[in-house]
């Protein structure tokens, strides 16, 4: 047996071992080796583009967290240091900041494309609902992340934003106290927003994105309805 064959057998043994213990290779095959309808276009790549930006945000966010100091007397100074002092700091912060904006644009486009194609119809209602929840949480990420720069613009925009949340019927006063971390606007609000931005929302987002991808894989991609030559778009499926 040649060395190539030996290496191949060894790789298969390792893969079998992993599959035996975790089943992950089966899932991997289920995800990767499947057919998608012929009637798909670049609009169907927006979901993947969003996943790429989410991963980019997670990576740049994790790097920023190593240098950012979430307290009233250090937050702004650490942002200035990240931007001006550390090597490539401005790239990491800039990509995190502009990644957020690009993500919101992509979210709107992805939702619009899904809406136009009727991708929320049976049996994909839950896929749509998880998508809307992801959208709402992303807006929450934008709201909480904006404050962390701790400049005047961000602070006062957040004060107005939190006051607005505080006007909600019944829950308003509790939301108000929860978001600002007490009865007044103090530096405590940074710790509160930092935790929400770093842990609470990303945790929920990761779970929802996982569920969203699972549903898309399980139920298949909706073909563009105007691609009439795609057999998956058979007219019987419409009327």
């Amino acid at each position: 047996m040649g060395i190539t064959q030996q290496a191949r057998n060894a790789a298969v043994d390792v893969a079998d071992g992993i599959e035996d213990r975790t089943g992950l290779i089966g899932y991997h095959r289920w995800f990767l080796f499947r057919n998608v309808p012929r009637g798909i276009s670049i609009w169907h790549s927006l979901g993947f583009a969003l996943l790429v930006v989410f991963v980019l945000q997670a990576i740049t966010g994790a790097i920023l967290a190593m240098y950012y100091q979430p307290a009233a007397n250090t937050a702004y100074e650490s942002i200035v240091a990240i931007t001006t002092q550390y090597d490539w700091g401005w790239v990491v912060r800039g990509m995190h900041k502009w990644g957020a904006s690009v993500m919101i644009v992509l979210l709107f486009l992805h939702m619009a494309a899904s809406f136009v194609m009727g991708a929320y119809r049976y049996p994909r209602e839950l896929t749509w609902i998880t998508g809307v929840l992801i959208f709402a949480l992303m807006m929450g990420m934008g709201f909480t992340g904006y404050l962390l720069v701790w400049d005047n613009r961000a602070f006062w925009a957040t004060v107005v934003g939190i006051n607005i949340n505080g006007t909600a019927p019944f829950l308003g006063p509790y939301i108000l106290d929860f978001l600002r971390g007490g009865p007044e606007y103090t530096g405590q609000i940074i710790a509160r927003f930092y935790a929400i931005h770093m842990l609470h929302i990303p945790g929920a987002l990761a779970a929802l994105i996982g569920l969203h991808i699972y549903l898309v894989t399980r139920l298949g991609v909706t073909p563009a309805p105007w691609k009439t030559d795609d057999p998956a778009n058979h007219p019987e499926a419409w009327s």
Partner: protein
Amino acid sequence: MTDPSKPLNDRQRAFLRYKQATKEHGRPFFPHETFTDTVVGVVVVGIILTLTVAWYSMAGCGQLWDISCSGDQVLTAHEQAVITGEIDDEAEISKVKAGFTERTGREFPEDARIVLEPLYEEKADPATTKYHPRPEWYFYFLFYLLVIFSSPSLVLMGTIGVPTLMLVLLLAWPFLDRSRERRPSRRPLAMTAMVVTAVVLLSFTWLGAQSGKVGGVEGLTDEQVAMPGYELVVNDSRGQCLACHMVGGAGNSGPGPDLSEEALLNRGIEWQIEHLKQPTSQIPGSGMPAYEGVFSEEEIEAVAKFLETLGMPERATDPEYAS
């Protein structure tokens, strides 16, 4: 199916046909579609990187695509404010420029433009309340809702009502629109709703971004301008009232209401005082910050009296308001 013996309905049969057609006639996800996805992903990352470089070079180094500056050479928040026009006092501008040259040994970049955004503004100072609420651009449409619903009886509708309704509508949409037709040309109602939503979102985002700089206040009498409340409302950096309100054609048309004819609402000085101290005590749902502790008791009273002359300038000579 949890019960295999149950007959399939039309929708389930149609979905099975889709699955079958995709299996028999579809394209492999890997490597065909994963390649397209990867290309789109790379383009998107490229766009983000380009925005980052444009942002840092313009706001940090003063020249588009120049990323050579670092450390002390990077423009400070104050220097960036000179470039954006946020600081318009000539003496202050000269001082800032001289300071830049002294620190960096370079001329101040006179022709610099910050098209995207500054790197950061001045550090937040909750105590002195330099109030300039500008949300991130993707919240401008919500920001503009406050302008539309600025009437006290409708504030709650703009702050909570409409956004909540929109979110609930989005979540419930698959259950409201249950036909199986997916071709846009045969779904006129859904397509119209989408186009209207898109136009409203885009125009609200645009209008929200337009709340510009504070200009000169017009239409006030000399007596009104002489009132102590005038300075506090128009020029005081703690109040920044005109960041959210208009008075005599100056200021921003939102998120707060136009105050030019505030006196005609007959609210009275006491109401104004209580509202300034704690806005939600008088207008449930108000997003305005409380000015108790920001202004002194005397200053709040002065602002209240000044507001009660807007639209009724003859009151400015009445001892009840002028004192």
